[in-house]
């Protein structure tokens, strides 16, 4: 886990590695709980912004986040979470760009479901193709 990273790596021995970050909840508990009212969800992008001038590091947001996606900056003592790299020069998610295994992606929910459907259909077709091939093979073997 890198220091002050906005996303977190979870490792559960022996074989699980997972990258966890803000899931952009529709009704985010962190926004609701913040006593300083310094967290705000961007209606357009879904990103939850922290007003660092107001944040006093009380960590209530960290306690209520069901994904454990928020952490406290080690020196600034402000809440930090994934902002899809809006705060960087690059303005687009760098983890997606640089993950060598292409293990991280960011997609709208409906795009995800569309992909899942496609995958399932392809798997189905593959099964049918395989069956067809095997039947053909058996048939030609029987002929021989």
């Amino acid at each position, binding site marked *: 886990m890198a220091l002050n990273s906005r996303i977190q790596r979870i490792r559960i021995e022996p074989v699980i590695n997972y990258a966890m970050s803000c899931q952009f909840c529709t009704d985010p508990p962190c926004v609701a709980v913040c006593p300083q009212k310094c967290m705000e969800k961007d209606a357009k992008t879904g990103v939850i912004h922290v007003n660092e001038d107001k944040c006093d590091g009380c960590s209530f947001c960290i306690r209520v986040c069901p994904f454990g996606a928020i952490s406290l900056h080690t020196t600034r003592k402000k809440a930090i979470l994934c902002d899809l790299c809006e705060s960087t020069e690059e303005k687009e998610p760098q983890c997606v760009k640089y993950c*060598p295994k292409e293990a991280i992606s960011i997609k709208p929910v409906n795009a995800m479901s569309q992909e899942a459907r496609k995958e399932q259909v392809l798997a189905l077709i593959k099964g049918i193709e395989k069956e067809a091939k095997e039947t053909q093979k058996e048939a030609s073997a029987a002929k021989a």
Partner: protein
Amino acid sequence: MVKGYIGKVAKINLTKDKIEVGNLPEEYLRDYIGGYGFAAKTLWDELKPGIDPLSPDNILIVNIGPFPGTYLPTSSKYGVFAKSPLTGIFGMAISSGSVGQQMRQSGLQQIQFYGKASKPVYLFVDDGDIQIHDAKDMWGKLDSWQTEDKIREEFHDERIGVAAIGKAGERLSRIACITNDRNRQAGRTGMGAVMGSKNLKALAFRGTHEIEVAKPKEWKSIALDLIKRANGPATLKYRDLGTPINTLNFQKLGCLPVDNFREGTSDRAIEISGEVMAEKWVVKKAACSCCPIACDHLCLAKEGPYKGSISSVDFESLFALGCCSGVYDMNAIIKAIEMCDRDGIDTISGGICVSFAMEAFEKGYLTREDCGGVELKFGNGDGMVSFVDQMCSRNTKAGDLLSNGTRFAAQKIGKDAMHFAMQSKGLELPGYHLSALKTAAVGFAVSIRGGCHLRNGAYSPDQKGTFDRFKEDRPDERAKEIKKVEDNYAIIDSYIICKFTRGIYKNDDEMAQVYELVTGFPLNGKQMSKVGERIVNLSKCFNIREGWKRDDDTLPERFFSEPQTRGPAKGITIDRKGFEAMKSAYYAARGWDENGIPTKEKLKELGLDFVIGKLK
């Protein structure tokens, strides 16, 4: 101010329970780079010659370079150094995982351990705060995996980097390793035993120290590019099938050690090949911190008594506990690797010790009773697993004997046992059958830490066909090639980065440039090679001071007199005269005299004036 480096050294006297923290001088950082280089200098300066490596007089050094925590791919590495209890000369072992990065963030560049704690302890460096904790709940009870879990649980922090020894280290096995992040080991030359001799169970690190880079902008752009390259064709082998791809490649060349190096091929090699492993055994590939390669091929034992066992299988572990011991049962190999990692012995030395014991058993030098009732024949997978435990536990006569390595065991057994003790300067040989690789034969023999493929990679020109691998010709050219790569590898081990990324740099200048951008010290490729040469020479001088002689740069008698009986290298042995000529050529290429002693001129040229007059 120097950037990159954290620059702090902690001198910990375990006998007196005293900790001193100081700054490493700028020249020291610049002239010796990091890891291996630092250790060569410090061991030369601080260690009394001739001491017993397992006595409190030995100094254990834990080191990082300037890169952990930066973007540089594979930079989360650390090295452990001391006088080796296995070889009696310069001992070094390097590992990765999360420890290098956590040590950097904890605020230390180097730790030097002196003396011996009066009771078992472990070190925890918590963001610059150096603490020595009681390890009585761990010592004799927990293996290295459990120790890691326990320390992380104790401080409620999963990111703590932990390097620990198992029972083999506690019991001073001279082939003991240090394990971190489960699957990574500082394996070679018995550094785990040195930790054990100091009553030191584990090293743990965490912290928030930030990393300052000299030229951040240029650095970021080159580092991001290097990450991409580290995920490109240069490292494909390690990402795809992993190093076990070697099994079938080596089989084709006749350099796959089989049955304790009696043969270089096996008709069952396919069973322990990278190809079959990928299809049948690998369940996950995992990476160290800061590494895009993910070379750890985690394999799961699927059936039989070892079902459920998981370990990271690489070629070296695979050949040693596999074909070299005549074992082709992946379930048993996976289990044996797990036991080595947990209880803390080096899988290469451990595997060669098993195959040595098997041959000794076959010859009647070891009896069934000596081996805890096990019929220790070549190919007995269950016997191999049992014998690994016997070596870690030291609870049988043969297990106890081999726990100190093959050279020690062969000396005790006497007769012709040294003939088939497959070691050089006490360190068991890695997975290359050397009568089929003549450049490697001399490269491995002259290595400063004993039988080792990672000092100069001399197998590569043989396998690529640069030289005729069956002949002892062109000694001068071979010698130059060995020297060139050896100097470069000394830098890699000082930076410390992973040798798997050696191919991602365009040239030496680029490799030097990353150092310059991070630290601010100017360095080009030519200067870098000089620094590498300085480090190799200094560690060599350390060996000479410890009594090294030309005759010690040799290989087991088997390679000279006992040819393989099948395969492409059938009938070939190493010609002793040709071998000695290649050694002389190597010494000459290094600017050393005929006896392998660096000349005054060479030492002066390398800025090692302080060594002059101190070589016996």
